[in-house]
């Protein structure tokens, strides 16, 4: 693996054979080639690595809900309370490593009382020791995870192993090597604890199904999911809650996991409604859900829920209120097209036209904002129906540089201005400029409402005050009126 570091190609991740030949990480590629002409070189792709690691981490959620990424090449699983399900810690650890090895990974594992200790034990080879504490004390000082300089300083002070450092008084260590060294030491020795940050927060409601035999068909998996949705719906109604977000994870027998998430604009708990959204989601996947050698576990969780009063069952001929109808449509379209594609407009308090509104996803349900109509009710619309963001550059001709436009050319068409109103002067937000500077915060715009000979109405502006801010003001078209 090579990576370009400051203009030079350097080795990043030599494999064992390369290490045996005397090549090491950080070496220039040219030097390595000189030493070993037949070197097989690949470009490093940290993003793909990260992506793969995240997928592995999702897959490890089958062992414990608390699975976290650990650095660029590590996974951290909190197996407290889970190990007995796999017949103890060692069988669990070997199950995890076996699964990783099947993917062509090389994995080393360690079990320890704290996350830091496990991290260090997995990375630094230590001599066999009777117990965990002794093993940690035999680790080199680099295992503290301090900066290279601090580790070097510790070594120069004659402290080679964690045990040596631990024997010193903490105050002296803190005075000489900084407080971090003491913190790191305490965490390593299990005197202080830092909680793991799992990749996924643990949901309050979680339904799981494990299968004795992997299930090879997506349709069957969805049928099981429907049963789990009923169970989750029951749990939600016991708590008088409804889910706003649902997550279904399909664990494949080869260790990968496919998470599917759906979101709703109103809390729901009807299994049919939940399943409709999941089916929509499955249909909208760009590459379909691939069972591979089969799914061996399904998990349905409700990461976000909100209070939802118990509802009376619809009696015969009972009708769904129309708002629910629209909310269901919004959810379905949002799941199918993407949540940012169904939007609602919200006003924003700004006089800069393009900042006066926000388009927010409609699934983030809020009370519809109240808009006020600008200007006098008798006036024609002073703001356009369509707004271009960014504004479109036009060529305009005015009789005088700071006068109204006479004609303008937009998209290769010449428009004669027959009627106009303006200018409406909109100044930039000078109060936001740093230390009251008058320059560098944009220019004043002079807006005109114009109508061309065929009756089309446009909103155009001159950017910059003639003479003051610019000598040749540019013209832009900002909107179209109805």
């Amino acid at each position, binding site marked *: 693996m090579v990576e370009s570091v400051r203009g030079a190609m350097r080795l990043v991740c030599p494999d064992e054979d390369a290490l045996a030949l005397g090549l090491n990480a950080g070496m220039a590629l040219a030097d390595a080639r000189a030493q070993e002409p037949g070197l097989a070189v690949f470009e490093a792709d940290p993003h793909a690595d990260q992506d793969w690691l995240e997928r592995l981490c999702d897959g490890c959620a089958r062992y414990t809900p608390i699975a976290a990424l650990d650095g660029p090449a590590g996974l951290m699983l909190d197996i407290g309370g889970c190990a007995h399900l796999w017949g103890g810690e060692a069988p669990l650890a070997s199950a995890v490593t076996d699964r990783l090895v099947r993917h062509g990974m090389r994995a080393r594992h360690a079990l320890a009382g704290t996350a830091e200790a496990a991290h260090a034990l997995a990375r630094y080879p230590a001599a066999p020791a009777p117990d965990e504490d002794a093993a940690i004390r035999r680790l080199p000082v680099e295992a503290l995870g301090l900066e290279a300089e601090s580790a070097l300083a510790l070594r120069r002070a004659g402290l080679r192993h964690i045990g040596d450092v631990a024997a010193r008084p903490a105050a002296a260590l803190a005075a000489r090597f900084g407080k971090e060294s003491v913190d790191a030491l305490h965490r390593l020795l299990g005197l202080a604890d830092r909680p793991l940050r799992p990749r996924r927060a643990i949901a309050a409601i979680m339904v799981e199904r494990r299968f004795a035999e992997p299930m090879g068909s997506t349709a069957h998996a969805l049928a099981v999911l429907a049963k789990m949705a009923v169970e989750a719906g029951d749990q939600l109604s016991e708590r008088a809650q409804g889910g706003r977000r649902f997550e279904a994870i399909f664990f494949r027998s080869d260790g990968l996991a496919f998470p599917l998430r759906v979101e709703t604009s109103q809390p729901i708990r009807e299994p049919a409604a939940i399943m409709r959204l999941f089916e929509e989601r499955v249909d909208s996947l760009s590459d379909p859900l691939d069972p591979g050698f089969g799914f061996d576990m399904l998990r349905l969780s409700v990461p976000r829920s909100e209070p939802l009063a118990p509802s009376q069952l619809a009696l015969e001929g009972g009708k769904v209120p*129309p708002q629910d*109808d*629209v909310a*269901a*449509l*919004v959810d*379905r*379209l949002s799941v*199918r*097209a993407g949540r940012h*594609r*169904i*939007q*609602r*407009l*919200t006003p924003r308090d700004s006089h800069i*036209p393009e900042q*006066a*509104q926000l*388009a927010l996803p*409609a699934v983030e349900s809020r009370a*519809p*904002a109240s*808009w006020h*109509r*600008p*200007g*006098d*009710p008798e*006036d*024609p*619309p*002073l*703001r*356009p*129906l*369509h*707004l271009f*963001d960014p504004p479109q550059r036009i060529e305009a001709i005015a009789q*005088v540089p*700071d006068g109204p436009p006479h004609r303008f050319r937009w998209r290769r*068409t010449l428009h004669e201005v*027959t*009627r*106009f*109103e*303006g*200018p*409406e*002067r909109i100044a930039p937000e000078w109060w936001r400029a740093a230390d009251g500077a008058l320059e560098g915060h944009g220019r004043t715009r002079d807006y005109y*409402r114009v*109508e061309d000979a*065929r*009756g*089309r*109405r446009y909103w155009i502006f001159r950017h910059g005050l003639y003479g003051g801010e610019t000598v040749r003001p540019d013209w832009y078209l900002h*909107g*179209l*009126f*109805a």
Partner: protein
Amino acid sequence: MSDSASPLAALRRTIAALDRGKPRWDSDFFCTGHGGLDTALGGGLARGRVHELVCAEEEAGAGAGMALLLARLATRADDVAPLLWLRLDAASRQGGAPYGPGLAALGIDPGRLLLGTMTDEAMLLQAGLDAVRCPGLGAVMIECRGRHRLLDLTASRRLALAAEASGVTALLLLVGGVPGPSAAETRWQVAAAPSAPLAGDAPGHGAFDLTLLRRRAGPDGMRWRLEWRATEGVFGEWSGGQGGQQQHGREGAALSGAVVSIPAARPAADRAA
């Protein structure tokens, strides 16, 4: 005579049985407020039907405005049912994004509007069909741009049936394309018209030229010029024409040259006073 009449009557009965929709005289109408147009259509446009609006690429602003205003009229005045506006990504690029303050100025509450932007035409039509099936919506407006290959008679018939079943009015805006055969109730050509000028020769209220291109039951080919009156929330007769300027009391020529000070509510409104 009776030989040929009875199969004909039988056929009629069969067709009536096949036509699952409500009979035409059952559907209700929403009036536009423009006297001539409403009388010609026999009371206004039908609710729960598909209406097509065709406009040229450069008239997209007027077309969308007309479709929105009709969507607003299709829901009852005190109704808060949301209006759904479905469009394509390309529409935002070519014709700009819907702007809340402008909608409010036309008398359409932007809080009621749901906006859907789809990636391709198939998705747009599918979403449109799903939306038209949802009776909680006030009206659905589907904006197609350019050549609409997928919008054929079948797709249009599907929309029409869904609209009849749910009672949701669908407005199909076809921008810059050649409209094909369709099952829509009416088809209109929309273009912007010169507005009746205000004092100081300022552009006035939005005016539209509407041509009835097609109608399922009744004569077509008529032409009207309408003006939107935001205060009353209806269309009206165009107040421009020869005497248009004289209707407004304050008469005066536009000042040439720069105008500097601007009142807060109206840009340079008093310049002509």
